[in-house]
Structure formats: structure tokens, C-alpha cells
């Protein structure tokens, strides 16, 4: 074959056949020989071969790049937040339903709150919390805890029966037979009896109550009660200081129990300025017991403790007792004036001697 005259198209076709391995062994050798003999065509062949390689590579590369982009897209869709469009269209469709549901929810929430008397309580409690506005968290916690948290301290025995009674503590405030305890102790009482540690029991009548301050003034109205010469303790009208060593005697059971601790805060539950927070182990039955300082001054009346908080008990300040006594109408007193003792007989005594002297004036309050 006279190869010299081979035109380029024919040569490329031959080269393609060679590259595609479509030639017989004999033709392959002929092609190779032709190339060595025709440097121009050899050069064209080399170029053509390189060009085709680039073409195949470019195609493979763009395939790979496409795959890579798909994988990348899938990957980023799986690893980034969902586009908002679906949510928005869903919201558009459900807007009306949501609005109706919200309206119903709002109505039912407020009507439930109203029906359960929440607003009455709220009104009462919010005023107590105002002093604590600095610490919103505490206020919030206290609001939430409001109804459940404060645990009134009284012994509940046989709640169901007609003969139910509560037991708590009370103590004498005047030598002519006035006794103070908590209002919550005597609410709904048919009769109130006071029993001292010797086992002597006296009938008492409720002279005056102050539900707001949780105080009740009783008077021993019993022929067996002999007027006493004097009360050994005095009442401290000024606020006591934080950290002060305090103690109480109460009747969480039928025997008097001594409890000792310290004044941990100058305000009471939920920032009540007419109460102290004290750290004394108190239990149901301690309510109404006297809170005394180391000199034997009554500085408060144990009233309750907070559920879920260790060592957070509360005592009503003497100041609140004074205010309550002053607000008793004269005709409620039956001519027996409230004259507080102003001579402290305890301040030089040891704690045990103090207790011996004052425990005669502390009573179990039995409510029937």
C-alpha cells in the first residue's frame, strides 16, 4: 500500500482503529512501521492520542465532579437546618386553627385561675413579695410555690372523724392568762384547751384573731387556773439581728421539745418583713411556740416552715404580736387588760435554767 499519499482523515481513522485495538496483529505492526517512517504522521498520532486522553479524562472528571456535587448537596442538606419555606406554608395553613386554639387556651386558663381563687391569693401574696424584687428568681420560685410550699405546722390526728383535733403550741403573754398561738392552729375550732407540761389542762377562749398575721390571742377561761405572779420573759420589740442564737420549746409530740438554732434571715417566707427565717428543726406541733434569744427575750412566734428547703422555718416577729395586741377592741378584753411583762428574769441564767423557768408558761394547744 502506498502510504505516502494517505490523507489526514484516513490516517486518523487508522490511528483510531489502532488505539481501539481493532486491528489485526499484522495491521498493528504495519501502523507502527508507518509511523516510524512518517515523522509528520507520527507527530499527528502522538497529538491525537494525547488529545483523546485529555478528552476521556475531562469527561471522567466532569462526571466525578457532578457526583461530588450531588454527594456534597446531600451531605449539607442532611447536616444543616431544614429550609423554612415548608414550615411557613404549614404555618399559613394552620394559622386559623392555631389562633382559635390559643384563644380557647387563654380563656380556659384565666377562667380556671379565677374559679380556683388564684387571683385572690395572688393579690394577697404579691404584696408580701414586693420587698424582694431585687431577686426575681426567688420571687418567681416563691410565687410558684405559694399554695403548696408553706406547710402549716399542726398535728393532724384523725382528720376524718368528728372528734378531730389539732395540736400545736402556745405560750403565755400576760400573767392574767392571755396566750398567743397561730391563727391557723385554731381556725374552725369548737373549743380550745391548753395543757402545760405538768399535764394540767385549761379551757381557753379565743379573744381575737388576726388571720393576716397568722396570730390568735386566747384567754384561759378556767376556774382551776390560778393567776400567776409574773412571767419570766419579756418581749423584744426591736428586730433581732441575723445570726443571733435562738431557741424554742414546742410540742411536736405530747412532751415538750427543745429546739435550738439561729436567725438566718430578717425576713420571712417570700420576703415577709413581719417574720424571720430561722434555722431550727421544727415539726408539726411547733406552731405557736415562742422564739427566744439567748437572754430569754421573746423575739417571735414559730409559724411554719418551707417544704423542700432544709432548715427554713419561719417565725412571726414580736412586732406583729404587738400590733395585733394593740388592735384588739377594748370590749373583747372583758376588762382584763393586756399588760406585758417588762422584767426579764432569765437573762443571767444558763440555758437549762431558762428552760426550767419558762416551760411552765408554754402549753399544748388542743383544738377540738
Amino acid at each position, binding site marked *: 500500500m502506498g502510504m505516502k499519499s494517505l490523507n489526514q482523515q484516513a490516517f*486518523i481513522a487508522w490511528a*483510531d482503529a489502532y488505539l481501539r485495538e481493532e486491528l489485526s496483529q499484522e495491521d498493528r505492526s504495519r501502523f507502527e512501521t508507518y509511523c516510524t517512517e512518517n515523522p509528520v504522521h507520527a507527530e499527528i498520532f502522538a497529538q491525537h492520542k494525547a488529545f483523546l486522553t485529555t478528552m476521556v479524562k475531562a*469527561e*471522567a472528571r466532569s462526571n*466525578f*465532579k457532578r*457526583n*461530588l456535587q450531588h*454527594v*456534597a448537596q446531600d451531605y449539607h442538606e442532611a447536616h444543616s437546618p431544614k429550609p423554612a419555606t415548608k414550615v411557613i406554608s404549614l404555618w399559613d395553613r394552620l394559622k386559623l386553627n392555631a389562633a382559635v386554639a390559643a384563644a380557647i387556651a387563654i380563656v380556659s386558663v384565666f377562667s380556671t385561675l379565677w374559679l380556683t381563687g388564684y387571683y385572690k391569693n395572688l393579690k394577697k401574696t404579691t404584696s408580701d413579695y414586693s420587698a424582694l424584687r431585687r431577686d426575681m428568681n426567688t420571687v418567681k420560685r416563691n410565687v410558684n410555690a405559694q399554695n403548696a410550699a408553706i406547710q402549716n405546722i399542726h398535728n393532724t390526728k384523725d382528720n376524718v372523724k368528728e372528734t378531730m383535733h389539732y395540736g400545736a403550741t402556745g405560750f403565755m403573754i400576760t400573767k392574767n392568762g392571755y396566750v398567743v398561738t397561730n391563727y391557723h392552729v385554731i381556725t374552725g375550732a369548737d373549743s380550745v384547751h391548753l395543757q402545760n407540761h405538768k399535764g394540767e389542762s385549761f379551757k381557753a377562749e379565743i379573744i381575737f384573731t388576726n388571720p393576716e398575721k397568722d396570730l390568735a390571742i386566747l384567754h384561759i377561761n378556767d376556774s382551776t387556773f390560778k393567776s400567776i405572779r409574773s412571767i419570766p420573759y419579756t418581749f423584744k420589740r426591736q428586730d433581732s439581728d441575723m445570726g443571733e442564737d435562738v431557741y424554742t420549746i414546742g410540742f411536736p409530740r405530747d412532751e415538750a421539745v427543745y429546739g435550738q438554732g439561729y436567725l438566718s434571715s430578717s425576713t420571712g417566707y417570700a420576703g415577709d418583713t413581719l417574720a424571720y427565717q430561722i434555722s431550727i428543726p421544727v415539726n408539726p406541733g411547733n406552731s405557736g411556740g415562742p422564739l427566744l434569744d439567748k437572754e430569754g427575750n421573746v423575739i417571735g412566734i414559730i409559724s411554719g416552715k418551707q417544704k423542700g428547703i432544709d432548715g427554713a422555718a419561719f417565725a412571726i416577729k414580736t412586732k406583729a404580736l404587738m400590733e395585733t395586741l394593740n388592735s384588739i377592741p377594748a370590749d373583747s378584753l372583758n376588762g382584763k387588760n393586756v399588760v406585758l411583762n417588762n422584767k426579764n428574769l432569765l437573762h443571767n441564767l444558763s440555758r437549762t435554767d431558762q428552760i426550767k423557768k419558762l416551760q411552765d408558761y408554754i402549753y399544748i394547744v388542743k383544738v377540738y
Partner: protein
Amino acid sequence: MSKEKSDIQIDCKIIDGIREGDNLAIQQLYQIHFPPIAQMIINNRGSREEAQDIFQETVMVLYNKISDGDFMLSSRLQTFLYAISKRLWLKHLTRGEAKYRKDSIDDYGESLAAEEVIEDHELKETNLVQMEDALNELGEPCKTILYDFYIQGQSMAAICEKFGYTNADNAKTQKYKCLQRLKKIFFKK
């Protein structure tokens, strides 16, 4: 020790998969290697989108090296990808500046190696991108004829039938003309 060995096996599997155009290998590559590189870029003034671009470019570097058959896994795949990404990101940050600033002296050797790889890649990439553009510019039916013949390896008879040429010589002439046009476009660029 066995963990290291299994990690190397995973690296090799990914490289083999990429060579064979296996999508699962690309997915695995993304899942294992994208997060640390994205973190590096985002920590260095980059956005997530920029991280994606840099990572894809890095994978293309790897791909081209693998398809050239000159990729030797001398270190861990992560090390390679990280070095390339870092270099690419640095180049991106210093676009238009003649010299790249170096992070520190001790990674100079590493970044120099990465720089060589990237330069080589860019050179080859230019060629391939040119070809891709030329093919796109070529238009139909030339593109498909050449694709079917040179890439798919189909016979002239099949192409003849597909495009409805009355005789094989016409098809051969058409194919030749198409190739010449493609070469013209490619070498003109």
C-alpha cells in the same frame, strides 16, 4: 495499633473507590474528612459555604492525582487533604497578593509540598477545563458523536444507525469533521 491499621484500610478503600468512580467512596470521604476541614476554615474567617468550596476543590486535587495514577499515599489521607485545604484556603485569603504568608516556619516544608501538588493540579486542571469547555461549545450532534465513539467506545455502525446516516462513509466524515472542530476550539483557547 489495630485502629491505625483499619484507618489506613479505610483510606485505601476510599482511594480505590474514587479511582473507580464509586459514589459511596465520595460519601465516605465527605463524612470522614469534611468536618475537620470545615472547622479549620470556619475558625480562620471562613464561612460554611467557603468551606464547602475549598473542600470540593481539595477533593478534585485528590481525584486528579488518583486518575493520573501518580498518587502514593505517603501519609494519612486526612493529612494530605488537610494540607491541601489549608493551602487552598490560604491562597483564597491572599488572593491578588504575590506571595503567600506562611503560618509558621515548622509547617513550611509541608505547605511547600502542598503548594507543588496544587500547582501541578492547577496546570492539569486548566487543560481539562479547557477540554470540557470545548466539548460544551462544540454543540450537537458532534458532541454526542465524539462522546459515543471516543469515550463510550461505540462502533461506527452503531453511531451510523443512531444518527440516521445513510452510509458509513458519511458518518466517518462527519465524525472526522467534528473532531477537527473540537481540536480547533480546544487549541484556540
